[in-house]
């Protein structure tokens, strides 16, 4: 085992825990520009706003109804949280148990330190089959490591078979949601993509959803029947038996997992759960939280190789890519509990307005805003922890009770502390914050500052303040600011003759 899985105890002291983070230059965990800039562009896209607003509102309503059906939803959430906490607490042991079980049942286990190593391993495994093609089950982790690009560079074509991933791939686009990667597209756009990119499509294709689905089905069926290699991620890996689990809605996963001769599965090391009863909890939590279904249509479970049935060669790649760094962070660790249901995306007022691409990372939304910086190091995704109003809707929706708002606040502190340690000169914001702290630590200084602030009254017109200097000009671009009153509350209190205390 080459992966360090240390878990230091005790509170996180100021100063980042150190373990290797996901390397730069490979995969899709970092955006090319700060959130604010990417968000501004997305906000101006009226088609995107309409598509996202409609889709998230729809799924929010459905999810609320599906969750309300279960009287023991809160107990299930707690059970899910506890199972993940146990798995993280003894991750080294559960991973070795998983490895032993998979190996004993005819599979081969590979350990990948990071995205580059995982891509090399998978490329080598596909090459060894002599095939230049592979069919893929929808998988976040392969997007994370940029597997399709790595395979393409080696002359191997990876075909996405999930309908939405297919739309993204054919559109030379990027996924923008865990579950609905093409949520930013509407059916008219999808029809155009199919007509343009799908070689074998009927030119009379309409934008009727059944017609679009049928076109994809015909296109994919040919691939399923000819593919010799399947590539998948997993939703869960049960340590006690070495059983892997993929849940999906379209049946494409079942095809990819059973038809090819060789199956290569990659999973982040946090996907392991200790036992089958734990899996039972997650199979209740996940569908209701993600698709608002009581049970997902296809649940595929497999354990190693079954002679004469299904893939006869099975490889499991265990990926770190910054997860150990997240695990070593006692506060941040709970982000690894995420089961990628996307409930937090669907309830997030920020995500609903800017979409997934604005986050830069393949993991968008509230959980992405904490997971991505934990995997890459905060400095490489420094704008993401601030991409939230801390409204808390994500925490309420999370099926494994990840306290995302607190994690965002924690990562902001880590960002500030790291910036202060590495930059010699304090930034304007740091100076302002330190000054505000100095002023407000003392009531006399504070009252003096209030008196000084009253000069703002001179700027008001008709009882309104329409323009403030930077950085507060960002506020007054769209909102008036309150005019400082003639008298502060504490002045009024004194003059009212009430008791001084």
């Amino acid at each position: 085992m080459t992966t360090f899985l240390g878990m230091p105890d005790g509170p996180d002291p100021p100063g980042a825990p150190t373990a290797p983070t996901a390397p730069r230059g490979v995969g899709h965990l970092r955006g090319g520009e700060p959130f604010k800039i990417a968000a501004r562009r997305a906000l101006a896209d009226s088609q995107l706003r309409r598509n996202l607003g409609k889709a998230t509102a729809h799924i929010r309503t459905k999810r609320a109804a599906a969750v309300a059906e279960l009287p023991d939803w809160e107990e299930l959430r707690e059970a899910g949280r506890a199972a993940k906490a146990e798995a993280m607490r003894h991750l080294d042991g559960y991973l070795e148990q998983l490895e032993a079980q998979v190996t004993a049942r005819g599979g081969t286990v590979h350990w990948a330190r990071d995205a580059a190593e995982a891509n090399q391993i998978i490329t080598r495994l596909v090459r060894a089959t002599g095939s230049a093609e592979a069919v893929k089950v929808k998988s976040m982790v392969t997007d994370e490591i940029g597997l399709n690009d790595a395979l393409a560079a080696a002359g191997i074509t990876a075909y996405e078979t999930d309908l939405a991933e297919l739309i993204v791939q054919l559109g030379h686009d990027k996924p923008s949601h865990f579950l609905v990667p093409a949520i930013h597209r509407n059916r008219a756009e999808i029809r155009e993509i199919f007509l343009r990119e799908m070689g074998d499509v009927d030119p009379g294709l309409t934008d009727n959803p059944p017609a679009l689905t049928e076109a994809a089905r015909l296109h994919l069926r040919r691939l399923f029947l000819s593919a010799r290699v399947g590539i998948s991620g997993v939703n869960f890996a049960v340590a006690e038996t070495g059983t892997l689990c993929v849940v999906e809605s379209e049946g494409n996963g079942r095809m990819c997992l059973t038809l090819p001769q060789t199956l290569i599965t990659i999973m982040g090391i946090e996907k392991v759960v200790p036992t089958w009863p734990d899996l039972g909890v997650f199979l209740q939590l996940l569908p209701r939280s993600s698709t608002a279904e009581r049970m997902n249509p296809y649940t595929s479970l497999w354990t190693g190789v079954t002679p004469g049935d299904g893939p006869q060669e099975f490889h499991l790649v265990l990926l770190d890519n910054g997860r150990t760094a997240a695990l070593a962070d006692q506060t941040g660790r709970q982000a690894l509990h995420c089961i990628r249901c996307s409930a937090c995306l669907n309830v997030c007022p920020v995500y609903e307005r800017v979409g997934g691409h604005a986050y830069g990372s393949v993991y968008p939304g509230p959980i992405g805003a904490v997971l991505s910086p934990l995997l890459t190091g905060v400095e490489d995704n420094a704008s993401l922890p601030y991409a939230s109003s801390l409204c808390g809707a994500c925490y309420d929706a999370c099926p494994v009770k990840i306290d995302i708002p607190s994690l965002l606040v924690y990562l902001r502190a880590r960002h500030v502390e790291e910036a202060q340690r590495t930059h010699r000169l304090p930034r304007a914001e740091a100076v302002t914050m330190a000054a505000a702290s100095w002023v407000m630590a003392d009531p006399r200084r504070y009252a003096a500052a209030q008196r000084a602030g009253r000069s703002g009254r001179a700027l008001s017109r008709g009882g309104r303040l329409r323009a403030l200097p930077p950085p507060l000009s960002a506020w007054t671009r769209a909102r008036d600011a309150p005019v400082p009153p003639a008298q502060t509350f504490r002045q009024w209190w004194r003059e009212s003759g009430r008791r001084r205390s």
Partner: protein
Amino acid sequence: MRIALFVTCLADTLFPGVGQATTALLERLGHQVEFPEAQTCCGQMHVNTGYQRDALPLIRRYVETFERYDVVVAPSGSCVGSIRHQHAMVARRYGDTRLASRAQSVAERTFELSQLLIDVLGTEDVGAFYPHRVTYHPTCHSLRLLRVGDRPLRLLRHVAGLDLVELPDADVCCGFGGTFAVKNADTSTAMLADKMRNVLGTRAEVCTAGDSSCLMHIGGGLSRLRTGVRTVHLAEILASTRDGGGAW
């Protein structure tokens, strides 16, 4: 009952009427309000912007100012949320376990206004009169950090003359989020636009809430667009009476 008022730095400096209303309301109900002048700010802006170390002196000041009181009230779900959920956490992070336990203890005795009125003082009808069409925005921290639930609505339903209209998508954030409104001003504005659309759709004259900060945000947008709808803090509505009790 002797009740200490933590007026919050925002209300103290920019919205003194909210503190005056809280005082008037509690005095009308027969309680003794004290305003310890040593108070300043809860430090939430520092914590939520990442400057936890700079928040420490403010947390210490809050604890030292208020720990001698049995009951503290603040007209802000957000500030009380920070006091309850962040003060001890920040103190612990910097190894000050003694401050953390003191902060925890004061936090348990610090209440948001609607919680104080209903849970501590046991009253839903405060005898207010406010003849206006009003819609209520439940601020995120009141709703999800403090779980005030329908307490503010129960108080509003007892206000004579008040025409309470339901706000569509009420539980969605207005986009304020402290420094979020400046750091991600465009996204914040997009959220504000939807909140304003919903407020305007109710045809209310007044949008109320339990936080001056969110009201400053919503009100700033409503004012900029000259909508004619104004924002009024919950305390100011509850302090208003038939004989002009709102004109302090």
